[in-house]
C-alpha cells in the first residue's frame, strides 16, 4: 500500500467540527487536504483541482451530496476519482460506493481512504 504523501484529499462536510478534525487527521497522515462546506463549494473546488480521493457527506447545503456525486461520475475529467461516502444515512448512499457510516471510526475511514487513493 503506497503512502499518502502528497496525495490530495477533498473533504466535503458541512459540520465544521468534523470537517476541521478530518482535515487535521488527514494532514497528520501526510495528505494534502482541501475542504468544502457545501455542495456548491465542492463543485467550485473540483472545477479547479483533480484530487486523489473525495470524502463526501450526503446531507449538504446548497447542492446535495447525490448531485455532487452524479457530477463527479459524469465529468470526464473527474470520472476516475474515487469517492468515499461518509453519511449518517447509509440508505442514501449510491450503490457500490465505499461507505463509512457516521459516527465514523477514524481508523476505518483512514483505511478505506488509503485503499482508494
Amino acid at each position, binding site marked *: 500500500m503506497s503512502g499518502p504523501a502528497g496525495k490530495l484529499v477533498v473533504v466535503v462536510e458541512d459540520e465544521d*467540527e468534523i470537517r476541521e478534525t478530518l482535515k487535521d487527521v488527514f494532514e497528520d497522515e501526510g495528505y494534502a487536504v482541501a475542504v468544502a462546506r457545501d455542495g456548491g463549494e465542492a463543485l467550485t473546488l473540483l472545477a479547479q483541482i483533480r484530487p486523489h480521493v473525495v470524502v463526501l457527506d450526503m446531507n449538504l447545503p446548497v447542492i446535495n451530496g447525490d448531485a455532487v456525486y452524479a457530477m463527479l461520475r459524469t465529468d470526464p475529467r473527474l470520472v476516475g476519482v474515487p469517492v468515499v461516502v461518509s453519511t449518517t*444515512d447509509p*440508505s442514501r448512499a449510491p450503490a457500490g460506493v465505499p461507505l463509512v457510516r457516521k*459516527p*465514523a471510526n477514524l481508523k476505518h475511514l483512514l483505511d478505506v481512504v488509503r485503499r482508494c487513493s
Partner: protein
Amino acid sequence: MTQDAKALSSRASSSVATELLARPADENHIVQFYESEDFLCETVAHFLGAGLAADEPLIVIAATDRCEKFARRLQLRGFDVAGARASGQLTLLDARATLAKFMVDGMPDWQRFKAAIGGVIAKSREGRDGRVRAYGEMVDILWREGNPQAAIALEELWNDIAKIHSFSLLCAYVMGNFYKEADGEHFHEVCRQHTHVIPTESFSNIETPDDRLREIGLLQQRARALESEVAHRKELEKSLREALAARRRSDETLRDFVENAVYGLHWVGADGIIEWANKAEMELLGYVRHEYIGHHISEFHADPEVIEDMLARLTRNETLHDYEARLRCKDGSIKVVLIGSNVLWEDGKFIHTRCFTRDITEKKKAEEAKRQSDSQLEASLVREKEARQEAERTVRFNEMFAGILGHDLRNPLSAISTGAHYLLRMNAGEKVARTATRILSSTDRMTRMVDQLLDFTRIRVGDGIALRRERVDLRDLCRRVAEELEAGHPERVVRVECEGEAIGEWDADRLLQVFSNLAGNALHHGVIDTPVDIRIDATGPSEVVALVHNAGVVPSDMLPVLFEPFRGAYRQQKPKGLGLGLFITQQILLSHGGTIEVTSTESDGTTVRVRLPRTDVAPRSGR
C-alpha cells in the same frame, strides 16, 4: 128547489132513469152513482115519492140525517110523510144500527141479515098489496169505511134475499169512492151486482140522446186519455224509481268511497265541532265515533296554536295544502299528519270544512332517523378528519423527529467520535487514551441507541427499514461477527459452521446488525462456559437458514414478548440498551422477506432460527 132538482124534474118524463126509478119492476136492483148530496136526496125523493103515490110499502135504511133530508124533500113534494110513517107504509131505519144487527167480524152474516132485513120486509108488507120499494145505503157506508169486500158481499145478500122476498131496491154510491185506478175492478163488481146502473148527475142530467152520445164520446176519450195518462205516469214513475235507485247506488258508492277511503276525512262546523269523520280517520287516531264526532277539533290537536291558525285561515276562505299538524291519539301517542282542507260555503255561510288527513308519522320518523344518522355520520367524518389530521401531525412530527435523530443528533456524535479517535492517535499518554476510549465507548452506545430510535421511528411511521442490497456471503459476514465478538470477549467462543454457498442479495450492514445482535444476545444471556454456535444451512436453492444457538434458557414468560419493542424497559435488571434490538432485528429480516423464530428449552438451550430468501421477494410487512 135546487138547480139540479129542477133540471131533473124538467126532463123526468123523458129520462129512462127517471122512469125506471118511478116504476121499478120486482127484483129490480138499481144502483145510483152520485156526486152531490143534493142530487142524491132529489133522486131518492123521486123514487120514494113515486112509491108513496102508488101506495107501495117503503123501506129506507140510511143515516139518520139522510132520512130527515129525504122526509123534508117528500114533504116539499106534497106528501104526508108523518102519516105514511104512522100507517107503516114508510119505514125509516138507521143504517149503522141495522148494520150492527148482522155484521160479524167485519162481514155481513147471511142468517142474521135474512132475519133482520127479511123481518123488516115482511112487516112492511103486512096488510098491503103491491111490491116493496127499498132504498139502502149500508153498502155505501161500508165502502166509505174502506171495506169494499163487505159492501159487495152485502150486495150479494140483497140479491139472495130478493129470491125470498119480492121487492125492488135502490142503492146509492158516491162516485168519489171510485176515483182511484185500483177501484176499477170493485166498480165493475158493484155494477155486476145490480140489474140497473144509473150514472151520476153529470150524465143523467143531459137531456137529448144526441148530447148523451156526445158525452159518451167525450167520456170514452177522457177514459182513454186517462188510461194513457196513467200508463204514462206509470212509465214516469218507473223512470223516477229507477233514477232514484241509481241515485241511491251513486250515493252509496260515494258514501263507500269517502267512508272507506285510505285517507282520513272529516268535516268541522263553523263552531269547530267535528260533524262527521270516516273510518280511516277513526282508525288513524283510535277513537270510536262518539269519542270524536261531536267534540271540538282542538281537543285532538297537540299544538293549540296550529289548530287556531288552521281554523283562522279556513274562516278567511283560504285553502290549506299539506298543512303539517300533530294529532293526539286515544292511546296518547302523537301522529304527524298533513291536512288538506277548505270550506263548504252556502250563501256566504260557513257550512263545514272538508278536511283530508294523511298520516306521515312513519315518514317523519324515517326522516328524523336519517337526519340523526346523517348528523352522526357528519360528526364521525369530522372526528375522522380530526384523527387523520392528528395522525398527519404525528407523522410530520415523527418525520421531524427521525430527521433530528438521523442527522442533527448524529452529526455532533460523529464530531465527538472523530475527535476521540483523533486523540487516541496522538499518543498523548495513558490517561488521555483511557479517557478517549471511554468517550468512544459512550459515543458508540449512544450512536446505537440513536440508530435504534431512528429505525423504530421509521418502522412506526410505516416507511420500514430501507435496504441497500448487494451481493453478500453470509458465512463471511457471520465470521466477521464472531471475530468482533471474540475480540471483545476473549474468554468466549463463537463458532461458525456453514454448509453450502451462503450467497444472497442482502443489506450487508443490516445483516451484520442482525447477527451481531443475535450472537451478542447469545453471548450475554447464554451459559458462560459454553460456546455460541452459528450454523448456516445454505444447501437450499432459494433460501438460507441460519441457527444461532447457546445453552442458555429464555424464561418461558419472556418468549411470547421477545420481539416487542422497549421490552428492556420492563426488565428488573438495568438494561444495556433500549430493548429495541430484537424488534429491529425482526423488522430487518421481515424487510428481507425472511423470518425469525425462537425456541428455548431446559434440555436443548435456546435456538434462534433465521430464514433468509436469497433474492428480493416481496417482503412481508412488518412493524
